[in-house]
């Protein structure tokens, strides 16, 4: 028999252990690759969509009419670099966009991002404009004229104006923020799975120790054994990681399909390319993780040589934990914050088994009942011997808690944000050249709208704050509306004076958004001076309203207080027509404004589409974290099974001493449930802290704004029940071993101290 065969004979005798280790590596790779693949794809998708549609400007007619090919010709003859963009609605293929690559020649730039459609012309939805024009026959088509960046700041011919070019609603920075948080969670998944792989590997290693000692006695040096172990795990890792990556991508594609469809629906582009992305990065990362997780012990002698045999102080992990938490509070940048998260997790993971063990030992000392004392001492042994899978379960539970709180906060925040901004059923753009007066008069005379009050006019523009010292302060967005009605009076306000909406309707003050209040330290009742249209006006602050996801400061005024010189950047009407027909409203407005076309947006459809993206993202995030939790629970179950087989004799001894099998099983259940419950309890503060870091630290540092943080005790209870179920499953599975009629100890060796 060769040395290799002797070394690997362990797995021939324990094929299930090899299978477990392989399964753990495959599952770990699958989970991490899945999360990584989804987040990187989602980020790429959002970036692509933003670069494709968010940064462009288009040329519009000031009379509100639709631009035509004649306009395009006139503008190009005027020396302006514009490119036609023809969107054609098609029931077969969704929406098709026709662009003219020749016309886009003047967009010339070395930066590929400036021409996002380049290279995509052969694919859906971008086609040559002639093809789109063909498709447009008999169908609804909308021509836009995109203007190059170099001309977007220049002077336009008379009768034209610039307008932002957008084909879907901007999800704001919520999407970016959410993906950054997902990245952080992806790293946690990696950490948890590494712990699980390590725990299974160490278990096998412990069982092979006698074989290694025997080989050593036969003259095989430890260096050679170590080299063979490295080769063995390297081979196993390679064999398992490749299918793991494939499964991960398959999982991400399966879960991400809905996400992709939602993105396509919103941006009309096949943005979610689920099968793209390289294999090398996940392969290299997982290989490194598996090697470090399994072979970290081989580095210990090296570390000892480098750092000496430092004595481990009991209080050291506590100090590290305190330091990590302090760093998370005062970290000046994202990098330091991630270091703080790593420090806190390492310290919490080190402390958890020690804490459980010491608590159990303390209770054992205090309890006078020898049976209870034995149970506490067994709990202490279990906590130390199952430290790795327990910590993995603790991390997984903390992660699930944080993800649940984060997702629910994002979900409710996003819903409120959408609800606030899209309160009215329809949104109508007021053309720049028209006088909105007659339309406003007509709307106010409609009995249905007069009764419901569900309409208002919005004027947007800019103002400048004036500091108390008289110096010019920061620019703020102006959101002026009137009449003030039920479309806004239901908004949640953080802080307000009495009857703030009535005062706003009367033009006796203004409201400020949360970000402005935070940054300028504005309080309700304070009087702010703003420069509006060249005039300095003073307004008391009536209320502070949440404005989720917008980093810009904003003031909310009654439109009636705007001075005539105020430059209205944009005007619109928000209308919930109720029993009144929307067709009748638009027909009348066209007639009053004498325009052929009106931009009317169905806010409910926009809300549904925008919600769809987030719902899909939330769904797959929850699925991923649930899978991680299941993996951690299964690993604990597996480790518990193997470990319990070495302790089964002592439960059997209880039966020899007269306890019935049911009574011995009850002891086992109490032990397993205590262990899983304590781990859930220890996961709770870690999860709440992680939520706080994600919501209150990572977001402000990354994006300059913060979401409200909420905790969900109902979910804690659910997780508590889950931990009970995990404990019960372990106990029930373990109690099967008590049925064995063996009355001899499994391990015939004399106790060596590791058993207590």
């Amino acid at each position, binding site marked *: 028999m060769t040395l290799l065969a002797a070394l690997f004979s362990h797995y021939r005798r324990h094929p299930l252990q090899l299978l477990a280790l392989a399964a753990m590596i495959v599952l770990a790779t699958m989970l991490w690759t899945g999360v990584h693949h989804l987040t990187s794809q989602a980020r790429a998708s959002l970036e692509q969509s933003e670069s494709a549609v968010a940064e462009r400007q288009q040329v519009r007619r000031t009379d509100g009419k639709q631009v035509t090919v004649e306009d395009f010709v006139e503008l190009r003859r005027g020396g302006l670099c514009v490119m036609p963009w023809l969107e054609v609605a098609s029931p077969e293929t969704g929406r098709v966009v026709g662009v003219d690559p020749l016309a886009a020649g003047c967009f010339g730039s070395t930066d590929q991002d400036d021409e996002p459609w380049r290279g995509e012309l052969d694919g859906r939805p971008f086609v040559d404009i002639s093809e789109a024009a063909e498709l447009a026959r008999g169908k609804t088509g909308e021509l836009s004229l995109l203007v190059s960046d170099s001309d977007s700041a220049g002077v336009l011919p008379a009768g034209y104006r610039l307008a932002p070019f957008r084909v879907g609603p901007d999800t704001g920075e919520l999407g970016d923020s959410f993906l950054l948080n997902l990245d952080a969670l992806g790293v946690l998944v990696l950490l948890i799975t590494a712990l699980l792989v390590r725990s299974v590997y160490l278990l096998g290693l412990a069982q092979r120790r006698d074989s290694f000692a025997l080989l050593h006695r036969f003259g095989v040096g430890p260096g050679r054994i170590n080299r063979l172990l490295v080769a063995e795990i390297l081979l196993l890792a390679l064999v398992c990681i490749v299918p793991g990556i494939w499964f991960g991508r398959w999982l991400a594609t399966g879960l991400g399909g809905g996400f992709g469809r939602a993105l396509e629906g919103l941006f009309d582009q096949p943005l979610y390319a689920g099968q793209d992305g390289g294999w090398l990065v996940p392969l290299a990362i997982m290989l490194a993780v598996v090697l470090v997780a399994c072979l970290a012990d081989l580095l210990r002698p090296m570390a000892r040589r480098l750092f000496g045999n430092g004595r481990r102080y009991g209080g050291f992990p506590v100090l590290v934990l305190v330091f990590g938490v302090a760093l998370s509070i005062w970290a000046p940048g994202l990098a330091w914050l991630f270091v703080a998260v790593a420090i806190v997790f390492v310290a919490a993971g080190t402390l958890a088994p020690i804490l459980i063990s010491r608590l159990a030992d303390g209770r054992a000392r205090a309890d006078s009942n020898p049976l209870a004392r*034995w149970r506490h001492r067994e709990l202490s*042994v279990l906590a130390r011997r199952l430290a790795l899978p327990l910590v993995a379960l603790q991390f997984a539970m903390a992660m699930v808690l944080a993800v649940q709180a984060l997702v629910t906060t994002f979900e409710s925040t996003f819903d409120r944000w959408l609800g606030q901004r899209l309160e009215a059923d329809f949104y109508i753009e007021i053309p720049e050249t028209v006088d909105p007066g007659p339309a406003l008069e007509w709307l106010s005379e409609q009995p249905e709208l007069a009764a419901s009050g569900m309409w208002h006019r919005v004027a947007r523009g800019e103002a400048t704050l004036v500091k108390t010292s008289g110096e010019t302060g920061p620019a703020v967005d102006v959101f002026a509306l009137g009449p003030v009605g039920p479309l806004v009076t239901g908004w949640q306000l953080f802080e307000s004076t009495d009857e703030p909406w009535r005062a706003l309707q009367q033009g006796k003050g203004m409201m400020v958004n949360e970000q402005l209040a935070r940054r300028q330290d504005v309080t309700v009742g304070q009087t702010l001076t703003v420069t509006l249209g060249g005039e300095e006006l003073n307004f008391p602050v009536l209320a502070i309203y949440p404005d989720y996801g917008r980093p810009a400061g904003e003031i909310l005024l009654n439109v009636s207080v705007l001075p005539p010189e105020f430059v209205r950047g944009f005007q619109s009407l928000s209308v919930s027509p109720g029993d009144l027909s929307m067709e009748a409203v638009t027909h009348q407005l066209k007639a009053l404004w004498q325009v052929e076309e009106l931009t009317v947006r169905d806010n409910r459809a926009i809300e549904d589409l925008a919600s769809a993206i987030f719902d899909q993202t939330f769904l797959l995030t929850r699925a991923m974290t649930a899978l991680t939790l299941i993996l951690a629970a299964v690993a604990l179950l597996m480790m518990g099974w193997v470990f319990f087989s070495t302790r089964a004799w002592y439960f059997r001894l209880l039966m020899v001493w*007269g*306890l019935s099998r049911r009574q011995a099983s009850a002891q086992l259940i109490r032990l397993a449930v205590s262990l899983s419950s304590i781990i859930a309890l220890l996961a709770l503060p870690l999860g709440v802290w992680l939520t706080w870091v994600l919501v209150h630290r990572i977001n402000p540092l990354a994006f300059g704004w913060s979401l409200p943080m909420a905790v969900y005790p109902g979910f804690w209870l659910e997780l508590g029940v889950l931990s009970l179920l995990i404990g019960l499953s372990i106990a029930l599975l373990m109690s099967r071993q008590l049925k064995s009629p063996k009355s001899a100890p499994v391990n015939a060796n*004399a106790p060596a101290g590791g058993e207590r």
Partner: protein
Amino acid sequence: MVGSLLWARGLKKQFSSGNEPVSVLQDLSLQLEPGQSLALTGRSGSGKSTLLNILCGLERPDAGSVGVLGETFDTRNPEALKKAEARWGNLRRQQIGVVFQEANLMPALSLLDNVRLRARLAGQDEQDCQDWLERLGIGELANRYPDQVSGGQRQRAALAMVFAMKPALILADEPTGSLDRQTAESVIEQLFELQARHGCGLILATHDPDLASRCNRHLDLGHLPVP
């Protein structure tokens, strides 16, 4: 059999080895009076441990009946056997002390706590536990853990546990099998001395003919007729 501490009649037990059934016990009968000691000898696999397990209810025979301290367990009475586990449990808890070759102690408890646990389960006074350790010469080791003492000291602690429960019957399965001769003799000496002093019955499974000869009676399972 009336008044006997223990009796067994027509015990049969088979195990399967691969596809082949192996008879371990075949129509075995025995009887033990209070204060008597019985040595069970025989080659490895002759059924000594199986018989001891049957006599304390840890295993069930395929056929036959057992009577211990007035309780009767008969394989022909399935109704009574349903409650047998609880009855056997009560007997082992309070009346039958079992000593194995090793691993008689909970490794997570000190020697004293092990003895206290055994006494508590038997409903005996825990105050005497330290005394029992003293009597067996390991009083100063009371707060040590099993891995911190020698094999002989562990077996003495196991005897202390058995005597702390004040049993009527002791079943010892090769209690000195893992000890050196000198230690083994010392432990056995104490076992017989205490058994005689407290007048309890003793069934001892052993390979050692000298040890077997110290018992009142001797049953060699290796020389029982095999059909």
